[in-house]
């Protein structure tokens, strides 16, 4: 559990929430005091020690279920910090499908057609978040991508994507 909390704090920091060492120590004291059994108590113990600005509360509430709720509720990309080979395979698959769709989308663009917001949203879902437009999440996304790139099948799939884009003159 402690490891999860550390990862969680790390994620918050990537999203721009400034958390000092003293505050993370407070977070651990808090969960020592109140325990981890009750979800809401646990959540509030972390929130009151780590988040000191009301504007960061939505970010906290977005990330909390990802790190502490059961895997079924979390999306594929956020299951664990490290990717297993099976997960990397699935990711590569998705990437290939994405390549296909991307090619189609770009061809349509070249023909003068517009992309619907739905299609643009797909991009966001692909990364696992519905607020990909938030600049704050960028660094967190970059870190996740770096981790998943360690797998060769992912690199291959990405390479294919790059080639497709190159063919289309981008």
């Amino acid at each position: 559990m402690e490891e999860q909390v550390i990862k969680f704090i790390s994620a918050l920091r990537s999203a721009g929430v400034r958390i000092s060492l003293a505050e993370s120590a407070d977070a651990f004291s808090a969960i020592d005091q109140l325990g981890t059994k009750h979800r809401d108590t646990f959540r509030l113990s972390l929130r009151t020690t780590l988040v000191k600005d009301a504007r960061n509360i939505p970010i906290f509430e977005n990330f909390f279920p990802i790190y502490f709720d059961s895997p079924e509720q979390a999306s594929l990309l956020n299951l664990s910090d490290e990717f297993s080979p099976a997960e990397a395979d699935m990711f590569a698959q998705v990437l290939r499908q994405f390549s296909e769709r991307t090619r189609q989308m770009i061809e349509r663009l070249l023909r003068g057609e517009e992309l619907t917001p739905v299609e643009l949203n797909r991009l966001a879902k692909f990364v696992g978040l519905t607020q990909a437009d938030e600049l704050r999440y960028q660094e967190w996304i970059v870190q996740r991508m770096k981790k998943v790139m360690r797998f060769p099948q992912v690199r291959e799939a990405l390479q294919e994507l790059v080639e497709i884009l190159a063919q289309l003159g981008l």
Partner: protein
Amino acid sequence: MTETRDFHSADELKKALGGQNYIASDEIATIMYLSQQLRKPLLVEGPAGVGKTELAKAIAGATNRELIRLQCYEGLDETKALYEWEYAKQLLYTQLLRDKLQETLSGTTDLTEAADRLADEEDVFFSMRFLLQRPLLKAILSDEPSVLLIDEIDRADAEFEAFLLEVLSDFQVSIPELGTLGAIHHPIVILTSNNTRELSEALKRRCLYLFIGYPSVEQELSVVRLKVPDLSPKLAQQVVEIVQELRSLDLRKSPSISETLDWANALVTLNAGTLDKATLETTMSVLLKHESDLHRAKGRLQNPSSKNRFGGTDDRHFSSRRN
């Protein structure tokens, strides 16, 4: 002297606050409980009038502690917050003791010797007797456990925050003439802020954080029912619905819970049985204090697309029985 009370759970704390007529959400109760357990000050932020100060008062009542309040304002400094010497009193004593002073200084040959002799007696004039204790010092020196409420800290400046931080870290203060004075009891510390400016990182680091926003319909309704029991349930419901709708408008100053309660009380005083157009127009200014806001509100509430709440002709919607 009644025993001061510590709570064994957030639930117990929540009930105790209820006993003080303060309706606390689970969130508020849990975080307040954590503040007690971790012995860390609590910073409560939120729009004006949502119950931040009331929380401090309620917790003081619930724990049987004295409430010591430091109201912050622009220009508040150490002197006004901590202590000052009661200069006038010191002068008075000097005058009245003049003869005695003459005696003490007799026999001295020069100014230096006289000054030295006087310095020996200094303790008389710089003792607790002449120390004007302001809230922070009161809280430190208090014989009984207390709740220290530092209200609207965002109105004070960054310099004051830095000073406050020092006091909050060890709960002791050094007064040159008297030495270092430490606290017998650590007070429960609650700071409130209306969010008018960003507080210093150092201060926020020190505290646990609680944000109290505007209440939900259910929460606000329970507060109105509790605090203004003479208002009919039906009217209370309408009052809350209107206020909630007004908050969705872009007003200069959104009505807070305290204004909702003022309005509810006004309606009771006026013996209003229904919330018809006339009553609304006359009492709306209790809720909204800016001309531009009143305009906007009237515009929205008369908008045909909103629910037909008012209108003298459509009295079927309202019950005219009282209570």
